[in-house]
């Protein structure tokens, strides 16, 4: 399959700190690619690189075969690369629907030029997340897990080709995690290419088509999820040397 998004030998160094150091990754079209690693392993820096929030010290970022290493982040979104953030980033004084509409405001979509068409599109994204009945509410009135789904709906409203999800289940209850897992499973079924950043290895094992593991800014392993997760180096990174030995 074709790689729609790729990192080629990218490095991000902040002074002496090597947040990402020579990492190469490629996302296959239509697949759910999980990027896991312990805290501070460089996962968020990697997703920030892909969405052009940080500049690489070296290496290239390719989107749909084109070098986008120096393309401004707003242009990447318009080309079809959407993302969510680790923390909830919704505007509390707007309704849920208005927050989702914000994902459409910068796009020139032929089938969403009229206000009513944009509203329909925002509602369709909310319906896809099964939260259409919250459209008129303010995000602060909603549970954390639903706010997260509003964010995903906003990212999906523009019909992106790739969705980057930065720890979408961080801080969630078991029920909320189950909901998000269901959402991701459904989006995968729709053929959406996704990169799921997560530090909980168990959460991604049932969802991902491909697993990459980062540790100390370098790529530890990459491949079929179950096989990769079983590698001693990966288990050591997650559980520590003593547990692996035991």
């Amino acid at each position: 399959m074709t790689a729609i998004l790729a990192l080629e030998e990218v490095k991000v160094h902040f002074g002496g700190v090597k947040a990402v150091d020579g990492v190469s990754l490629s996302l296959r079209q239509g697949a759910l690619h999980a990027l896991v690693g312990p805290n501070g392993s460089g996962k968020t820096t990697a997703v920030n690189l892909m969405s052009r929030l940080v500049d690489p010290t070296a290496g290239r970022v390719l989107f749909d075969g084109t070098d986008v290493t120096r393309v401004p982040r707003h242009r990447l979104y318009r080309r079809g690369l959407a993302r969510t953030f680790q923390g909830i980033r919704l505007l509390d004084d707007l309704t849920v629907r208005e927050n989702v509409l914000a994902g459409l405001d910068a796009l020139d979509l032929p089938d969403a030029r009229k206000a009513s068409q944009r509203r329909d599109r925002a509602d369709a994204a909310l319906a896809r997340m099964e939260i259409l009945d919250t459209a008129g509410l303010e995000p602060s009135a909603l549970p954390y897990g639903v706010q997260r789904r509003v964010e995903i709906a906003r990212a999906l409203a523009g019909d992106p080709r790739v969705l980057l999800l930065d720890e979408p289940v961080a801080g969630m209850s078991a029920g909320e995690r189950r909901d998000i897992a269901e959402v991701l499973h459904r989006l995968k079924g729709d053929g959406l290419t996704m990169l799921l950043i997560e530090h909980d290895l168990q959460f991604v094992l049932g969802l991902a088509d491909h697993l990459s593991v980062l540790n100390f800014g370098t790529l530890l392993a990459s491949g079929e999820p179950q096989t990769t997760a079983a590698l001693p180096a990966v288990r050591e990174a997650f559980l520590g040397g003593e547990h692996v030995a035991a």
Partner: protein
Amino acid sequence: MNLEIWFGTNEGYIQAALVTTLLAASVQVALRSGVLSFAGIGFYGVGAYGAGYLQVTRGWSFAMAALTVVALTLVLAALLALLLARLRALYLAMATIAFVLLVQIAALSWDGVTGGAIGLFGIPPMLGTGGVAIVVVAALVLSALTQRSGAGRRQRLLREDEVLAGALGIDVRRHHRIAFVHSALLGALAGICQADLLTVFTPENLGFGVIVSALTALVVGGTWHWAGPFLGACIFAWMPVWLAFAGEWRALAEGGLTIVVLIFLPAGLAGVVQLAARRARRMRRPEDRSAFTSDGAANIPSDSLEVSR
């Protein structure tokens, strides 16, 4: 009281309120997009002196003079926006205050154009109070339409979360430049109107005091609401009348009142309306919350939640 008599006795206050509305709106339009710029106050001077000079000294018609000043403002503001593109928040505010003071110095020194310390006299009144009111209404209508549209959402994103704005496809730098130029344009229009109403413009009409007046009117009226500049401008136009009983303590009373509003109504007077609307919205449809379980998960049938492993 007869409306005609009221208008006659209050026309000066009405004119002051109208011009201050435009000046406060010039600060607001930039601030709404997260740009703390007072350059509009500098362009207030450019607008007043430019339109006045072209009419008085060059004999141009009002329309030609006004259009030329507007075009000049757009070009100068675009260049200034590029020059100051790297500055943010307080640094940009300081740079634009310096620009206002430079315009004031130019007004004092450039005798041939500005009339120096004496000022520019004999500017023909063409718009009058009615004409200026039309300009103000147009500016406020545009502001209200913007606030309620996708452009308003964009401004809110730019103001509250630039990173998110960029991640949602908004060209942050471009929109900051647009806000800067829009602010300058409103300032220049205020200047054109002020020169038309007063028929005279001197360096004393410019400077730091104008920045304080515009900012105070905006904050008291409502920083984010389209009606804020108008409400604040009206309050400060008529406040000397309302507080006349305070005599020499009037300035102190004005300051005190401003502080009280800032403490108890931080979103300004217009913000009270917005807050009430938000509360009404929050009260609406409480039954929607029953769609979620106590741990925040969606209350949807469990058989649809099976995740294949």
